């Protein structure tokens, strides 16, 4: 649910990073946070919990600058990936305008990816939203592991598992090194801002 403030000329969009536990959603946000200029980024919020899992969510507000006099602000959220946090995951999804699905390439997590994407689809449906109609990109994370002995899935396998139905843009990334993080963000930002502005701003600025 975007917020359009006509008095301050601001548009707020919410982009949610979704995916199975430990796939690197928070790392994506940390990378973005650490490499952006202070003027464009807000304070990153994480809720401190024991261990390195996200229990509730992380939030990183970004300021995109002006388009036709409108200040575009994006808020990046991550959801807790672990299956048991179903309720909080669904809460964070509330009002999302764009989605990044972060897939884990480890062979052993193959099932988890598919389950998580299905979980995303059903949660959105509960909010009356269809995944195929929303801005969505898929990120194949942890590509740095491909050259290690750890068994990983190939891009083709990931495509077959996750993108055969949606046919959206995919990005190979390595959130810890920063590779592909901004490509992913750039694409989802464009799609989301278009999606929101097409609904509201296009006719306003004619």
């Amino acid at each position, binding site marked *: 649910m975007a917020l359009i403030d006509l008095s301050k000329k601001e548009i707020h969009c919410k982009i949610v990073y979704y995916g199975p536990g430990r796939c690197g959603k928070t790392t994506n946000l*940390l*990378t973005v*946070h*650490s490499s952006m200029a202070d003027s464009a980024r807000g304070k990153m919020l*994480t809720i401190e919990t024991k261990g390195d899992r996200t229990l509730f969510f992380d939030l990183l507000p970004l300021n*995109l600058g002006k388009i036709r006099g409108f200040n575009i602000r994006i808020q990046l959220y991550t959801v807790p990936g672990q299956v048991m946090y179903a309720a909080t995951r669904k809460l964070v999804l509330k009002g999302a305008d764009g989605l990044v699905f972060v897939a884990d390439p480890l062979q052993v997590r193959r099932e988890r990816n598919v389950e998580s994407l299905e979980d995303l689809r059903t949660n959105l449906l509960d909010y009356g939203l269809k995944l195929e109609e929303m801005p969505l990109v898929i990120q194949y994370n942890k590509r740095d592991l491909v050259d290690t002995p750890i068994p990983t899935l190939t891009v083709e396998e990931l495509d077959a598992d996750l993108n055969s139905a949606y046919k959206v843009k995919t990005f190979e990334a390595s959130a810890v*090194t*920063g590779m592909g993080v*901004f490509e992913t963000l750039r694409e989802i930002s464009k799609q989301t801002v*278009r999606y929101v502005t097409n609904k509201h701003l296009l006719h306003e600025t004619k």
Partner: protein
Amino acid sequence: MTDKAHERDFHGEIDDAIDTLFAPHAGAVRNKPAAATAPVAPERPTPAAPQEKAAALPVSLLSADGADAFSPFEEALLSLDWEISASNIETARRALQEIQGNFEVDKAVALTEVFSLMDRLLAAMAIAPQSVSTSAPKTLQEGLQTLRAAAGAEDLSLIEKTLLDPTLSELRSAIPNIPKDYSKLGQAAQPEKQDFSAGEQKTAAAAQTPAAQTSRTAASTRVPPDEDILPELPVAPVGKAAAVLIEAVNAHLAVLGKCIAKRIIPVENLFAKTPGYEKLHAIHTELRERLERQKQNLIKALGVNYQADAPVPVEPPVGQSTKQAEPAAVCPWQTVALATWGGKTVGFLPEQIVYQGKPSPKVRKCGPFLPLKMLKRGFFGKIGFVMQGELSFQDEAVLKTLTIPVAKSSGAEAPQNDSPLLVLCRENSGMAFWLDEPTEQLDVPPGCRWEPETDPGTLVAGNLTIKGKTIPVITMRSM
């Protein structure tokens, strides 16, 4: 520009903005997310500078006499701080009365105003919590501390400046609608107070605290002197005349009590709740307080002759208009406006007619409800211009919002093209009538038959019989 081109353009702008934002980082790995740039944990809202504590109370006083009586009130205040509810307020008021009762008589008298203001603040919270200062429970806490200190103090005059005065002024400012010159009133009257005999001072103080009727001279009464104070009666009058007088005064007290409880307080509460009626509320409160003081004075004057359960003298049932309660068979009005409505002759009260005339044809289609703004003439006309009587003084903004139900006649026909419209209004109620003919003034001949209507649910106040013809008189009764 075509829509497509416009859209393309627009999307181009979005892409450019996003590319510019992320450009320096695209693909490039600038630095690994280091622990040094760890996210900031959520910050607590910056707390404001801690408030200075109210003057500390001498601890020694807390264990003084009467201290035990404070804890129920303290508990009640805690509940109130949490939730403003009728039962919480009631508990607090009862606990406060309890404390007052446990005080030494002298002190209870001297602290009358603290008690009464605290009670009044509680009452205001019950009636209109929105208009009470949000620090009210805190102010009551301070009142309680003051009472505590007073309970232990040997001489109240020692804490007068440091505790009593600040507490009183805080209590006053917390109560909504208290007259601004309230404290000044008390001060201005100070010299007068010295003219009173000690006995009279006692009366004044006792008037506010019946519990303290046997008081000795009060050290420092804070009761604003009042012109209502009766001089103390020297000796109880004797003889038959006196007995009659005592009975009359007792009956008067019973009526007065009933009027205050059933008539004045509900109206006062209503005013308190209604925004814009602050002044009326203050006047009403003052009226009630003066009447209550009067009542106390009379009770005091009666002394042993006071009968708390004196019978209320038989009087016409309250609520019924006095006009109708006048001796039967005399029409309460001297003139009525006669008209035919729904084929019948009916009477209206001229003073209740706020509009009479033939409005424009579109008004005739208004259906069962008539917005008064339909009656205004011309684009720049005002509704007030076409109104008469009570509504001609009303604000245009208010008139604009008024919609008045249209009375259904038994004839139930749509208004004819030339039927005149009549609008009645009294206080909050109004009704519009499509008449068959315009009204005609009629002076009610003396001696004609009048039967008041007993059913309060009808608009007919009664039936007037003139020359063998019965005319129902339609009136608006105030709500």
